[in-house]
């Protein structure tokens, strides 16, 4: 016959989270790890609440025959242990129940809460592997999200590049198309403020290229782009369509008088001389304008065609003028 103390010691070594109850629900022995959780509790009912079960004093037999037990710690109700019980025969051990417990999925929290170490778990228990895996998982997710962030940054950069005119840094044709599509999203809604397009074509630009070289021409284009950006609001879009053609998309600017005042101001800004090398270079600009609220149904292509037609009309009137598309619109002479 093995002494009870030896049995308890052996159980403690093999099953550090075991619980040995007598017939009345008193704790005869508890594994060293379990003791860290339940303190000095002497009775099952002082330490645990059996989820879905009754108290141990009335049902040690039920604990001892359960295939799967869920026990909530009274000292830390967030922690639920799970386990299986076995009945002990009345002769020899004096009856009662032996229960082996484990953390289950709450392992990480439990380890943290009770300051456990790898020595607190039996090597056959997969606790360490579960901890390892959850931490490896977190590290992998971190690595993958860093990688995703890098891809995202590359995507944003590529997109910006695809929509930007490399010389001037303003939108290119594709960028403008996107901005117009965005403006059209709200078109037709009752609260839609509409928008205006200004097609701008530089006058005398060829002379800058011819007299001072292409580098000077490029400098002039950059200067015009920055003037256009300076004269417009953050919500406006500036685009270079290639050559010496620019387009402004102006959300909410549907008052013809205000729009033509802006066109006038832009032309004056562009006409200010630009110092390139040791020469003061001058260009001018002609502007064709179209306003979305002048249309029953907004068709961006038609608006652009009309703005182009207005631009040609302005050019035909002579340099430095602005024309608003559509009948009865005020014209700004050269």
């Amino acid at each position, binding site marked *: 016959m093995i002494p009870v103390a030896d049995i308890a010691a052996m159980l403690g070594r093999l099953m550090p989270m075991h619980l040995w109850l007598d017939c009345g629900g008193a704790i005869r022995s508890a594994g060293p790890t379990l003791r860290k959780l339940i303190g000095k509790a002497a009775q099952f009912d002082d330490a645990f609440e059996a989820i879905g079960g009754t108290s141990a004093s009335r049902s040690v037999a039920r604990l001892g025959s359960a295939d799967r037990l869920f026990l909530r710690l009274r000292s830390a109700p967030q922690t639920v242990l799970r386990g299986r019980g076995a009945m002990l025969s009345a002769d020899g051990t004096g009856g009662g129940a032996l229960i082996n417990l484990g953390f289950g999925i709450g392992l990480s929290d439990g*380890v943290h809460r009770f300051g456990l170490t*790898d020595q607190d778990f039996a090597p056959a228990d997969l606790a360490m592997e579960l901890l390892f895996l959850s931490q*490896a998982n977190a*590290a992998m997710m971190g690595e993958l999200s860093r990688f995703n962030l*890098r891809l995202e940054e590359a995507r944003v950069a590529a997109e910006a590049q695809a929509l930007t005119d490399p010389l001037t840094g303003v939108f290119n044709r594709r960028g403008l198309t996107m901005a117009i599509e965005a403006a059209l999203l709200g078109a037709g809604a009752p609260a839609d403020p509409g928008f205006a397009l200004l097609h701008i074509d530089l006058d005398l630009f060829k002379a800058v290229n011819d007299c001072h070289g292409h580098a000077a021409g490029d400098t002039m284009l950059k200067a015009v782009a920055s003037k256009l950006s300076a004269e417009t609001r953050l919500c406006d879009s500036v685009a270079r369509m290639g050559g010496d053609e620019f387009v402004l998309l102006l959300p909410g600017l549907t008052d013809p008088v205000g729009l033509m005042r802006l066109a006038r101001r832009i032309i004056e800004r562009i006409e200010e001389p630009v110092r390139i090398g040791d020469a003061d270079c001058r260009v001018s600009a002609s502007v064709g304008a179209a306003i979305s609220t002048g249309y029953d149904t907004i068709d961006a292509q038609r608006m652009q065609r009309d703005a182009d037609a207005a631009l040609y009309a302005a050019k035909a009137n002579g340099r430095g003028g602005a024309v608003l598309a559509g009948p009865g619109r005020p014209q700004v002479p050269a």
Partner: protein
Amino acid sequence: MHGMINRAIEDFVRDAYGEGAWLAVAAATGSDSRGFRLLHDYPDDLTRALLAEAGAPMGKTGPELAEDLGAWLAAQSGLRRLLRFAGSDFSEFVLSLVELPGRLRMVIPGLDLPPVQVELEGEDYRIRIASADPLWLHAVAGMLQAMADDYGVLAVLALDRDGLRLSVPLSAYTEGRPFSISDPAVGAA
């Protein structure tokens, strides 16, 4: 070879030798200098070329660089932490090397390390890796040296034809670095 391994080489070169060194390695091996994709398979020859090119400026061979890489990997706080889960002391850690391929596979399916064998040879350990490529053994040797420091033991490693011979003349050489299983994971975003 799994993209994760090439990525590790890339990160190591960037971290240890700088961005310029990485760009040179990428150019010499025809790799995308923006880096390797994590979940993508690359030819094994590319991995060998990466190690050879990365070592070339310092006059190091591919296997020597694999050793540096192993040590560097074990020094990364996230990985070092995961490695420490394998054993509560250095001797347990060495014996658990047989589990290393399984652990890797569990975390990253598809990342296959050749089988590792650990035997006791008197007081020493004999570690063999079932692969024709010596790079693995060199990488593991570098990792073991770094982990010996981490556990605070003095370890002596010798590579010979029969694999890796590891002796631990002093098992309490330094305090080692602190480790607790309940600390939060490193590298979590």
